[in-house]
């Protein structure tokens, strides 16, 4: 019994570890943050449902509070522009957030 528990635990940690290593060894990986005009939990759910299955997407974080979608993607498989399109296809207004930390995300979508 003990053996099985140890086995399950080990395999869980191994999988976690391997996933981490994999991400670090990939060099052609870039990150982007988009400001998206979402305002409900369901928008978040919708993005979390669709974006992981876009080609080249490695990781995703959605912050409803900041109205931001952070993506890590493989540059050899996709581009910022096609990711932006994928988000727009879900019905949102999307702008890339500048690296400058002082950029005001709320202002970005103002018409």
């Amino acid at each position, binding site marked *: 019994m003990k053996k099985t528990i140890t086995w399950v635990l080990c395999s869980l940690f191994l999988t976690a570890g391997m996933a981490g290593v994999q991400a670090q060894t990939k060099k052609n990986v870039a990150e982007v943050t988009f400001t998206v005009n979402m305002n409900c939990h*369901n928008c978040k759910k919708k993005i979390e449902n669709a974006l992981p299955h876009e080609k080249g997407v490695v*990781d995703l974080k959605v912050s409803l509070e900041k109205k931001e979608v952070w993506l890590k993607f493989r540059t050899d498989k996709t581009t910022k522009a096609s990711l932006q399109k994928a988000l727009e296809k879900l019905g949102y*207004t999307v702008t890339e957030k500048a690296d400058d930390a002082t950029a005001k995300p709320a202002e970005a979508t103002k018409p």
Partner: protein
Amino acid sequence: MKIILLLLISFIPACTLSAQMVRGIVWGVSPKGEKTPLAYSSVHWHGTPAAVVADSNGRFSIPPPATWPATLMASFVGYGSDMREIPNESVFAELFLHEGATLDEIRITGRQAGLYNSRLTQLKTEVITAAGLQKMACCNIGESFENSASISVGYSDAVSGARQIRLLGLSGIYAQMLEENRPDMRGLATPFGLSFTPGPWLESIQVAKGIGSVLQGYENITGQINLEYRKPATPEPLFLNLYLDRFGRTEANAASSLQLSERLFTSLLAHASIDPMKVDNNHDGFMDEPVKQQINLANRWLYMAPNGTALRFGIKGLYEKRDGGALDFDASRPRDTVQYGTGIENTHINAYVKAGIPIADTVTNIAFIADYTFHDIKSFFGLKAFDGTEHTANFNVLFQSKSGRHHDYMLGAGIRWDSYRQGLRDVWFPASGTGRQEQYIDLDRDETVGGLFGEYTFSHADRFWFVAGLRADYHSLYQWLITPRATLKYNITGDLILRASAGRGFRTANVVTDNIGILATGRQIVIDELPVIEDAWTYGSSVAWYFPLFHDDRASLVLDFFRTQFTNQVIVDQEDDLARVHIYNLNGPSFSNTYQIDFSVMPAERFSIMATFRYTDAQTAYRNRPARERPLNDRFKAVLNLQYATRMNIWTFDFTAQLNGQTRLPDFAVTNGARYSPVYPLFFVQLTRKFRSLDVYLGCENLFNYTQRDPILLAATPYNTGFNSSVIWGPLMERRIYAGLRFTLFK
């Protein structure tokens, strides 16, 4: 297009702002403390009725008040209200609305903890989220408790397949089941109630331990289990779930939420399942679980009127058939002593209407709640037969308001009418050899209960809450029932929370359905005296500490203690007399003490660990004997749950290990001097793969195939007085491998 329009609309007020306008934002705060802008809430100055509505981003601007400082108030359907003192117009106002009691709120989504101890509720509350509901096969809500040590789930007997829970060391009949805060699955539905709500219909389950609000009546004694359904206003036009397991159980669930107009929403929920296989893994000649079929439908509506009134109504209906007993039982033959079979048919209908009407100043609400339940059960266990029909109608009116920052109060009145037509045809064969004996026991009962209730909440500085409630009900059979209750919550710091509660509860027993397992014995059933209403006090307290650990800044440690003490209890005694089941009122002490510790941490991103341990000491004085440990009540339960998800939750691994404590075996079931059942472990695993709009899962319950050996006493002679299938302490079903899929269509 819609989105652009919405955007435009939301920015119009911003453009027309004049310099004097007071601006701000309304946040909605989820039970987990997550805050998001809350669209379309109502904002006004205290003392003036003119309100403005926040835009789709929660932002608002309101003309300034006559004098400074002034109090700004916000409220929204399904949320509490908030008020802030604003010193002058230069302040950007922020208001926070916590998800309130009516719960039609926006919910936490994405990856959630499957089960957590809520920070916000007054009572110690475990929340089983949608993620928690997906950790197990969760064919029905009975299974969703496998991750919780607070609740133990077991079978009431080895033939009916009826599952029963235990909360605070007492039978599930003392916990009140609520459907969105409305009492549900009471009366004759109690024994099978857990299998009457499909897990995929639910959004979350809240298990509140200890005494709760007086609002839902006097029936809760050990706690409340509230089921939150998928909401009509959820923009998910279609959710589908299919499930299949190794025993042939096949299940289909569908949920559809539709917006029919700007203000009208509906949801349609459907479930059909079949357990077609006669399984007898322990080779005792009896099916381990009955062959079952169930069809279950619900339709729920929500109408949001322009004045803020929310009208909710709905109907659900269920039919279920269970055929169990001996493998070779032939239902078409006349029932005789040659064969032993069981058959149970349940039909259940429930309809409800709820209306919440905000009054002028938006902190005052009036609510009306009405519902009607029909339940019919037809059953036989060998030659014993029990039939019952129940009609219940309920009407409540509530008035809720607040006075100043610190005082909230609620007043209400309610009436309930219960009509039970039930009868037991008891057949037994005494050991003396006098042949077949038969008796008809009439259990008809009508109850009318009318009552007044009130609840007062004192809150101070978002740190201290004290709730005192009282209800006075006049019961047509038991006259006045006075139910006092109080709860206290004190946030000593933001991360250290103390809770305490105490109060009284009552319950009228339905002696046969509450103890359906007694029908699956060869004994005579004797009701020695007319059961009197059960009366108990429950008190307890808990301390929750949240602290940073490893990667997690919200690891938690929760300790709690609860005690339930009965003033009267209906006792079902199988130990006094080996040929009979005696039913009588308590004459002596009966109590249950429960201690529990819960720990949860997320040591790495997407990896969570939850460990919990409960110890129970439950004793009852049976007739002619001093108080002793209640039989078949597990002394402890320990649960360890590990969950790991790969990035973006593409793969999710769940592992649950349980250690179930020993139970005292009834005297007649003691063999070879073993007075206690063994301590046994149970393991559950599940693997989920997420695709776009589709989850596929594969899992196994009871991984190492642990089952209770010989669960039926004298299985070979079912008409002997010693035949007994109610001595159940362990799993009856072997390893269950299952697979399923969930499909969600987003709007």
